[in-house]
């Protein structure tokens, strides 16, 4: 587990711009959620809308919309995919994203058309085992997090 100023970034996940993590499953599906830095900067999540199961999304379209007291935003899918399951518990308790962004705060499970078609995304570990290409997008988010550290510590909001 990588950590920066209290923000956790698991090394077994895939990352994309716009604060998204993805966890590949052995069944070919991908679980999607938002990163620890993203939930930290967004603050306590007050409401979540997740699109319905069976909906097919183009790359870049929102699988969910989150709202906190100071922020509203969409969660884009990094590749074209169909929603096969959504986290019903999250709809009832949006704060799960703040409490456990990589676990109980997952948003949806996706069946991708081709998860690596879109350029610019990186696996957490390259084919030669190096971690040098790990999550450049996440690194960008962390720079933002670091830049804001003078105003607010980048720790998990519990």
């Amino acid at each position, binding site marked *: 587990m990588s950590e920066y100023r209290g923000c956790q970034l698991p090394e077994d996940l895939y990352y994309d711009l*716009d604060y998204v993590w993805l966890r590949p499953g052995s069944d070919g599906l991908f679980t999607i959620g938002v990163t620890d830095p993203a939930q930290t900067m967004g603050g306590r999540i007050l409401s979540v*809308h997740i699109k319905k199961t069976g909906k097919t999304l183009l790359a*870049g*379209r*929102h699988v969910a919309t989150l*709202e906190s007291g100071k922020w*509203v935003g969409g969660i*884009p899918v990094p590749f074209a995919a169909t929603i096969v399951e959504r986290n019903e518990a999250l709809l009832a308790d949006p704060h799960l994203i703040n409490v456990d962004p990589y676990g109980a705060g997952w948003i949806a499970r996706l069946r991708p058309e081709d998860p690596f078609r879109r350029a610019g995304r990186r696996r957490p570990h390259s084919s030669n085992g190096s971690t040098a290409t790990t999550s450049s997008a996440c690194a960008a988010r962390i720079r933002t997090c670091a*830049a804001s550290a003078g*105003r607010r510590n980048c720790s998990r909001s519990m």
Partner: protein
Amino acid sequence: MQDIGEAFAHDHRRLEQALAASGSHVQAGHWEAAAAAFAGFRDGIERHMAVEEQVLFPAVEKGAETPLTAILRKGHRDLRVFFDEIDDALSARDAEEYGRIAASMRALLERHDEKEESELYPAAQTQLGADAAAVAARLAD
């Protein structure tokens, strides 16, 4: 002579009215009028965001993205996805989907506009100085 804050805040209010007009047409089942109103809103807000991205953000960044401009850029990206989704809902004549997306978009716009008016525009006004009036005039181009 308008300053940055006055000109852009006035444009926010004008765009809110254009979006509301589209919603009223949807509620009335006037889909072609709704699509035309939304197209007008989208043209206007794209021009508004372009001036912000091309002039105001660089003016306050001075070469390096700041937490403020990072979150405002994220807002612009999200808004453009919402615009596409609204267009889809209008094409499908799906009032329920239109209403859900429009509600999320209005909530985003409310917070986004407030942040711009309280933080971005005052900072840009300071940085742009004598050039501010010409930038404000670009909204009407």
